[in-house]
């Protein structure tokens, strides 16, 4: 049998990230999840494990996947999303502002770039937003952020705290976006909004900013 703590010490060593090389993982997170969930054939699993032994970041993600999976009831299916309906068919008795928000959310979330780093690792440095956290937003505000590599394109998502999308702009070629006054119509002063920027470099590499808050004035 194992001496006390031996397995923990060895597992700790496998997952210990203490250098940039150890912190890099070339494996797609989908592969790691599939391996941890027992969905891979031995040959494919062996290839994943080879990378896991080489990269502490991969091993760490694998270990986290085991912990995440360690709960019963995984196969339970959640309630199906309601049927997709055209904005015109939405219930007319809802407040117009809520209606507009929901429609904007539907459109915006659906169209937010579909291939962000997502399950891929190595998403690179985050996009830096230029407005401070909690900055006021008015019809005159210009959203700006640190430019990425030359030729980058940007997508901007502005939403309420409850994730109702206020605005989504894609394909921007400059690192600035003027606020459209229509976005703020009907929003009471003091409303907190979140905004986030995703940059796509010419080679297709995508990076995102952390979400930040703006407060409607």
């Amino acid at each position: 049998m194992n001496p006390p703590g031996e397995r923990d010490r060895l597992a700790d060593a496998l997952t210990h990230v203490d250098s940039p090389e150890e912190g890099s993982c070339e494996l797609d997170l989908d592969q790691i999840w599939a391996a941890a969930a027992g969905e891979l054939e031995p040959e494919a699993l062996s290839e994943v494990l080879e990378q896991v032994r080489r990269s502490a970041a991969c091993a760490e993600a694998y270990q986290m996947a085991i912990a995440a999976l360690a709960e019963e009831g995984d196969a339970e299916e959640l309630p199906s999303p309601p049927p997709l309906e055209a904005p015109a068919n939405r219930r007319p008795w809802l407040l117009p502002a809520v209606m507009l928000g929901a429609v904007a959310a539907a459109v915006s979330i659906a169209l937010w770039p579909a291939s962000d780093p997502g399950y891929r690792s190595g998403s690179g440095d985050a996009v830096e937003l230029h407005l401070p956290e909690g900055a006021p937003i008015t019809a005159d505000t210009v959203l700006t952020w640190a430019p990425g590599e030359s030729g980058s394109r940007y997508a901007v998502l502005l939403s309420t705290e409850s994730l109702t999308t206020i605005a989504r702009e894609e394909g921007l070629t400059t690192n600035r976006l003027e606020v459209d006054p229509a976005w703020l119509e009907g929003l009471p002063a003091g409303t907190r909004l979140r905004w986030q920027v995703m940059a796509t470099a010419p080679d297709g590499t995508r990076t995102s900013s952390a979400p930040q808050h703006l407060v409607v004035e």
Partner: protein
Amino acid sequence: MPPRAPAHDPPAPPEALRALQPVLRGEVSRQCPDHLRAQVDDMVQAGLLRMARAHERGQTLTKAYVKKVAWSVTVDAVRKARRTADQPTPEGPAALQSVSAGRSPEDRAAVSELRAALRECLDALTRTSRDVLTLYLLGHTIRESATRLRLTPKQGESRIYKGLDTLRDCLRNKGHQP
């Protein structure tokens, strides 16, 4: 400025996402390491966006899928925190310490050395023994480790225990106490 998206573009399921938000939040909260607790809201938002895109691609949103999304945003947050900690900041060492679980530089160096030795010792095993032992060390049970490699539990147990014996000898020969 490019043309704005028309309001009648294909809708996504905001109602469904709102319904799943508590499930996702629960999963993110469960999986999130302590030093990232302040970022749970951001992680939930990132997860909701991924789920919206997945739904558009036809992905069925099961509890297992929400769990996977929570895991992926947590992994991303852990890696991002580490990258941030590696960069010089006013907090400097404190930021790094929060990611390194409060380890001293000596401890970190010792673990790194053990890691290098462990890798060499694992490489010396046969492929099946190496794989089953890796699975076991990562946190799978003996049965899980065996079945993933199409071994019987008995075969897996035997390989794991023999592999551990070999590993101990190898590590001791390299000056490490396993």
